[in-house]
């Protein structure tokens, strides 16, 4: 762990330095540490521990060059509208805000810090020592565990009291559990083999193993500094997690959260350059005992076999800046988005090669993706940030692997939701104005937008309940509620308050693999 390594020698040296260095120099160096810590404690979970950016922009000497310190101070004080940036007025003193601005404007992007398998081991925390003391069934009334919907509540400041994984019974729309996560919860995965376990990953790369029967965290481990990537193997025995900071991934024992093997993410990118890479999506598949992981910057997908030594097959030249993906054909085919090429690449996980690259709108972010069967065809739906004039949702025929239609929508989109029993595919409009309050509904059959819901807040990450009867949507940012609609009438039926909700994850996902497919799809490759 690099920052510690850096700090420890300094503490030793500073005693000597006190005798030798002029007082002013010593004070400057103390200040640097103070502001580094302030950055880590308040900013790094979104802006990246290496100052290189993560959910939020990079803050370093280069990116902030020429920016007015007064303007930067105002943003920190008042927050930034239409983003997740909260106001730090009253949380940080004016002197600290000024000092932080000056610190950021002279700090370069830091080198990729180390976070080794030993660091991961040492970070393991056990909250429930003897898991046999846990209840044998849910300690609350629920018809089916798949009715659980988990929401990643970020908390206004991306950390603190409001940062929780919140679990809701999607039949009653009542909260059934809240698990504090310290920093913003980002992804919730469920164990496909044992319904009681959920895994929550935060923006500071901790993974909490959560017992859904007693609604508490039983263990946690810190897998890096930042990064949302997490997948669970089909047998429920392994977790793979990947980080933006540092550039690594790790396979954990899903039961104990102990690390088994780490991977340095580097490789030759599509332009022939050897690069070190962020971790993109990680996915387990019902098709095989493997994980697939995207190396964002290297443009590669690695297939890791879950056997001795965890060998890796590298699929290269997939695209520039890979991000997220979804599965189809019983989990044999992986559809992965490439931001910079504006394509989605179809990969065969059996042959471990690229099948085809499909047009996907501008800056595709498939957000977990959706696939539905309509009139004998399996159609995939892909959202995209749409940082261009053409804002569309792409529809692909996943059998023929061709573009069926690019449906015009009112702005950029981030995540599509579909369900076998619901008539509409919901997409969240994220363009930074009033449109961000809305979600648009696409009729599965006509492939046209038929309705726009005004959800409020920054509405994103729609998700259907496991029975398809209800559509859950986060009214995120300052909206501070999850809004529930009837999936057919589209009437609002409930509101669940929480702080800055984001991703919504139905437990039903373990049955239908990709949202919108029927549970039968998972039983075998077509």
């Amino acid at each position, binding site marked *: 762990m690099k920052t510690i390594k850096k700090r420890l020698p300094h503490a030793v040296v500073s005693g000597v330095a006190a005798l030798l260095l002029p007082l002013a120099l010593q004070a400057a160096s103390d200040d640097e540490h103070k502001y580094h810590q302030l950055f880590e404690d308040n900013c790094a979970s979104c802006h990246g521990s290496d100052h290189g950016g993560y959910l939020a922009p990079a803050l370093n000497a280069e990116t902030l060059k020429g920016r007015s310190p007064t303007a930067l101070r105002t943003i920190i004080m008042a927050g930034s509208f239409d983003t997740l940036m909260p*106001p730090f007025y009253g949380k940080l003193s004016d002197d600290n805000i000024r000092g932080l601005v000056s610190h950021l404007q002279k700090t370069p992007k830091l080198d990729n810090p180390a976070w080794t398998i030993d660091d991961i081991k040492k970070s393991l925390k056990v909250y429930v020592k003897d898991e046999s003391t846990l209840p044998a069934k849910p300690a609350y009334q629920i018809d089916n565990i798949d009715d659980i919907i988990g929401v990643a509540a970020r908390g206004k400041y991306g950390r603190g009291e409001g940062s929780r994984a919140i679990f809701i019974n999607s039949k009653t729309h009542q909260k059934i559990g809240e698990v504090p996560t310290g920093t913003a919860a980002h992804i919730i995965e469920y164990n496909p083999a044992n319904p009681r376990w959920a895994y929550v990953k935060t923006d500071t790369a901790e993974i909490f193993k959560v017992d859904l029967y007693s609604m508490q965290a039983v263990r946690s481990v810190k897998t890096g500094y930042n990064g949302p990537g997490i997948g669970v193997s089909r047998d429920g025995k392994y977790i793979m997690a990947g980080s933006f900071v540092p550039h690594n991934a790790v396979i954990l024992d899903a039961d104990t959260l102990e690390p088994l093997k780490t991977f340095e993410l580097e490789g030759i990118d599509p332009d022939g350059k050897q690069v070190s890479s962020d971790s993109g999506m990680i996915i387990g598949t019902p098709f095989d005992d493997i994980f697939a992981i995207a190396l964002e910057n290297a443009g590669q997908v690695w297939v890791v076999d879950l056997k001795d030594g965890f060998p890796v097959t590298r699929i290269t030249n997939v695209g520039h800046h890979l991000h997220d993906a979804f599965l189809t054909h019983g989990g044999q085919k992986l559809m992965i988005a490439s931001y910079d090429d504006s394509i989605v690449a179809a990969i065969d996980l059996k042959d471990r090669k690229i099948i085809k690259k499909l047009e996907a709108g501008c800056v595709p972010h498939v957000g977990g993706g959706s696939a539905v069967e309509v009139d004998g065809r399996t159609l995939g739906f892909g959202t995209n940030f749409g940082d261009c004039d053409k804002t569309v949702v792409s529809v692909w025929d996943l059998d023929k692997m061709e573009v069926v239609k690019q449906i015009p929508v009112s702005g950029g989109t981030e995540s599509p939701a579909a369900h076998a029993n619901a008539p509409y595919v919901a997409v969240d409009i994220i363009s930074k104005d009033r449109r961000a309050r809305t979600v648009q509904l696409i009729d599965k059959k006509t492939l046209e937008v038929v309705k726009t819901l005004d959800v409020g807040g920054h509405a994103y990450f729609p998700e259907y309940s496991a029975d398809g009867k209800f559509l859950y949507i986060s009214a995120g940012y300052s909206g501070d509620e999850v809004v529930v609609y009837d999936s057919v009438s589209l009437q609002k039926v409930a509101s669940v308050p929480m702080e800055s909700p984001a991703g919504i994850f139905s437990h039903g996902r373990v049955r239908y693999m990709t949202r919108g497919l029927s549970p039968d799809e998972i039983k075998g490759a077509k």
Partner: protein
Amino acid sequence: MKAPIIASLIVAGLASSVSAQAASIYAGESRAAAVCSQCHGIRGTSADAPFPQLAGRDADYLESALKQYRDKTRKSDIMNNIAGSLSDQDIDNVAAYYARIKP
């Protein structure tokens, strides 16, 4: 006996609606989203935030507080600046909007 009272209520109602240009909660919603909710939230503030909640507060109170911040009879670096950007109509709208929200 009753008629004059009703008449005076109607007159008062007309007078206030003229002076207030009928506060619009829709305009208030949009202004609150752009100016207030970043700190004060819509229904409530963050458990970690130092800002008071506005939802469900009395409209007259919100209006008078905002006007005091605007004319700086009530001091706050940040609120003096923010209220300074609001027109009378904005203040009416925002106060009416927050007063109607259930926290």
